[in-house]
């Protein structure tokens, strides 16, 4: 299946090892990466959809980060704390 041997996953593994997207892609011989292209297309719409008020600026943190990784060559730094609506700003009161 694609999650085990696909080209996008191979790039993903390299990204996880610390390479940036262009380095990872180059190392694999710059293959056609439809998944990465999809991130570019979909991620590229997020600022527009946010501006139109269709989505919130705190929504789709994973996709926004993937766009930074693929389109802006930023290192992977998953925004875990922003997933699922984000962590509470203050720690819950302990009893």
């Amino acid at each position, binding site marked *: 299946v*694609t999650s085990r041997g696909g080209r996008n996953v191979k790039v993903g593994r390299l990204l996880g090892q610390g390479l940036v997207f262009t380095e990872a892609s180059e190392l694999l011989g710059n293959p056609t990466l439809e998944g990465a292209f999809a991130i570019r297309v979909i991620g590229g*719409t997020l600022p527009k959809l946010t501006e139109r008020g269709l989505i919130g600026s705190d929504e789709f943190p994973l996709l926004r980060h993937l766009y930074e990784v693929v389109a802006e060559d930023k290192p992977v730094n998953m925004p875990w704390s922003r997933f699922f609506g984000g962590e509470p700003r203050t720690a819950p009161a302990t009893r």
Partner: protein
Amino acid sequence: MSSIAILGSGVMGSALAVPLSDNGHDVRLVGTHLDPDIIDSVAASGEHRGLGLRLPESVRAYQLDDAEEAFDGVEIVLSGVNSFGVRWAGDQLARLLRPDMLVIAIAKGLDANAEGDLRILPEVLAELVPADVHSHTGWAAITGPSIAGEVASRRDTCVVFAGEDQRVTTAWLMPSGRTPTTYGRRPISSGPRCARRRRTATRSRPDSPRASWRDSVNRIPSTAYTTTRPPSSLRATSRCAGWSTYWADEPKPPTGSQGLGIAM
């Protein structure tokens, strides 16, 4: 048996020629303008270098210049180009499609307009075909979770056909007369045939693990696999992929993919 033209002889389009041909369909593989060498090779020996194997002898290879001949009288057209070639393929289909043909699109992905609205690529493909032909053709899509190499070498895998009109997905590949929603060369569910394979594989292992396992897999009858009861994991995968998929043994859901404007 159906006559099927595959437009694009890249790895996935060509890989699908294998199960289609195995199922007795008349398969015509048409190369794009980037594929003349592939087509020459397939025509000469069946050898497809991208896949690293020989395609079945019954697969006929056509250069793009002969596409009209290849499309003559086919019932089903598989658009076998990737997402970067969708617009090119749409332009080709605009001249090659005839009313009553069914089109299955391979390319996954989304297309965005300047305002940020998204559409699935099969819609982009269909839109390029003139309205008078478009309205008399059927449109559907095929997606993984298989990869081309697995499909071409007849490994256990599966693909999902999806579409807004179930008549299209149903008309596609129906050797058994049942309603297929998934298709693969061999069973992938945890049904009895799959269990039999596991037992055979285990028994054969002691002699020479790898070779015996492969032999045991190859002994499985290579009939078509269609089912109306795909594994739940496959349903979940397909839904996550955002296709407007539904299954023949389930009631049709009221809406399609949310946010993509697909009405079902």
